[in-house]
């Protein structure tokens, strides 16, 4: 360091002498390189001013006293800049550390919230969930009940990022603690509502959809808590129909009764569930219309459900210039027999 400093100070002096004599661009380019080397080694502005003063004194021993004082004055003025520079440097390092910490947390969240897609004959399931930032505030889960029915949960914490992600673990563990028996969706939502209401700040809300699908009958029994509606695709008519039930988002009030409804799907029909990250995709200043989602799904009907959701995601990712505004989750369930 000591050597580096002396070497660069000498170089600075040489370039300064050259410039004072010839005012050439080569010397200016030279000082640009020296300056970059200083930055790289965290040399502070006041030290550079000091190098300048020393070099000048050596080159011109008879320098005017008043001129010399003016340079001391400049040095003094640089001290606070030097401090600000160090502070920013430190904050930058902290930010890098923080980013890597969040990325570890995001990885951990992925592992924690992992759910296994059920592998059932006659049923083709595709699901994708991509966070806008590193941590995901959307959640989906599959529960396989002993009677052969499948629980499907999709939830979205209002908000995103770390607080949303932390909150989501709660839903996951509550769902995990359910008995492996078929339970009416309104009962499940009612339970989760109480858990969320008791355990979160009053400004934390979760929208959720819970449904139970019976692979034998093709019947889906469902209940919504303020969540984005689901869509039923009828293959015969090539038509999407919205389905939902009225219900307050989780976490607002302790006692909420949720409603239940059901639909029955036939061969090649689909159930499409999503979070508002899909419907609130933006193309420039324009929010997309739900029909646009349907049109994209139709383009990929020939693919498997998993490829379908992936292609839909890719389409909207491109539309938004690869910068998601919100966590994006899409689930498609197709009856194949």
């Amino acid at each position: 360091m000591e050597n580096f400093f002396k070497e660069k100070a000498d170089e600075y002096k040489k370039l300064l002498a050259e410039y004072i004599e010839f005012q050439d661009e080569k010397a200016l380019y030279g000082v640009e390189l020296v300056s970059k080397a200083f930055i790289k080694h965290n040399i502070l502005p006041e030290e550079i001013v000091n190098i300048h003063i020393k070099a000048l004194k050596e080159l011109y021993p008879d320098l005017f006293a008043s001129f010399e004082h003016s340079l001391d004055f400049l040095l003094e003025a640089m001290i606070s800049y030097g401090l600000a520079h160090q502070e920013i440097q430190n904050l930058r390092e902290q930010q890098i550390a923080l980013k890597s910490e969040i990325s570890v947390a995001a990885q951990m969240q992925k592992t924690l919230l992992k759910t296994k897609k059920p592998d059932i004959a006659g049923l083709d399931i595709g699901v994708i969930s991509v966070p806008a930032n590193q941590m995901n505030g959307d959640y989906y889960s599959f529960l396989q009940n002993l009677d052969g029915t499948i629980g499907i949960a999709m939830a979205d914490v209002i908000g995103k990022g770390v607080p949303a992600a932390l909150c989501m673990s709660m839903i996951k563990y509550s769902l995990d603690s359910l008995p492996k028996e078929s339970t009416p969706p309104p009962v499940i939502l009612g339970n989760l509502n109480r858990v969320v209401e008791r355990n979160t700040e009053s400004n934390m809300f979760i929208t959720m959809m819970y449904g139970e699908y019976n692979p034998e009958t093709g019947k889906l029994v469902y209940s919504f808590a303020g969540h984005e509606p689901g869509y039923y695709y009828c293959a015969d008519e090539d038509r999407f129909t919205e389905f939902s039930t009225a219900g307050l988002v989780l976490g607002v009030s302790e006692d909420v009764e949720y409603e239940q409804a059901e639909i029955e799907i036939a061969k090649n029909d689909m159930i499409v569930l999503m979070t508002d990250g899909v419907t609130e995709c933006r193309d420039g200043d324009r929010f997309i219309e739900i029909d646009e989602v349907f049109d994209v799904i139709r383009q990929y009907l020939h693919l498997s459900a998993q490829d379908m959701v992936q292609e839909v995601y890719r389409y909207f990712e491109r539309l938004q210039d690869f910068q998601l505004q919100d966590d994006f989750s899409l689930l498609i369930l197709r009856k194949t027999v």
Partner: protein
Amino acid sequence: MNPQSCVHIHKEWDIVGARQLGREMAKEIGFSTVDQARIATAISELARNIYLYADQGKISYEIIYNNSRTGLCLIAEDEGPGISDISQVMEDGFTTSGGLGAGLPGVKRLMDEFEAYSEIGKGTTIKTVKWLR
């Protein structure tokens, strides 16, 4: 320790006096121009903190020796409201965001050693040392 000199801080002008004395002592010991400027700035920050938050206090100066090293030790003392969370004020970005200056992290950077003691309602003492290189 037995402080050799001391400046009382009551009004903003006293900050100038505190800087002046510190710079003179630093020069006498043989600190470089850059380090003299750094010590003066550190004193400025300490004195401003007293003036802004504690109303009054003092800064003491002492030339200290450790093995073969010589250093300048500054002690800033006040009987102001105290700092409830020293770790927080030592964090970068905490005091500077409001344009209040380099704050205590700045003092720590300008000097070589830094210690802070504070008690709510009783006051704050900051001891900091710069060693001659």
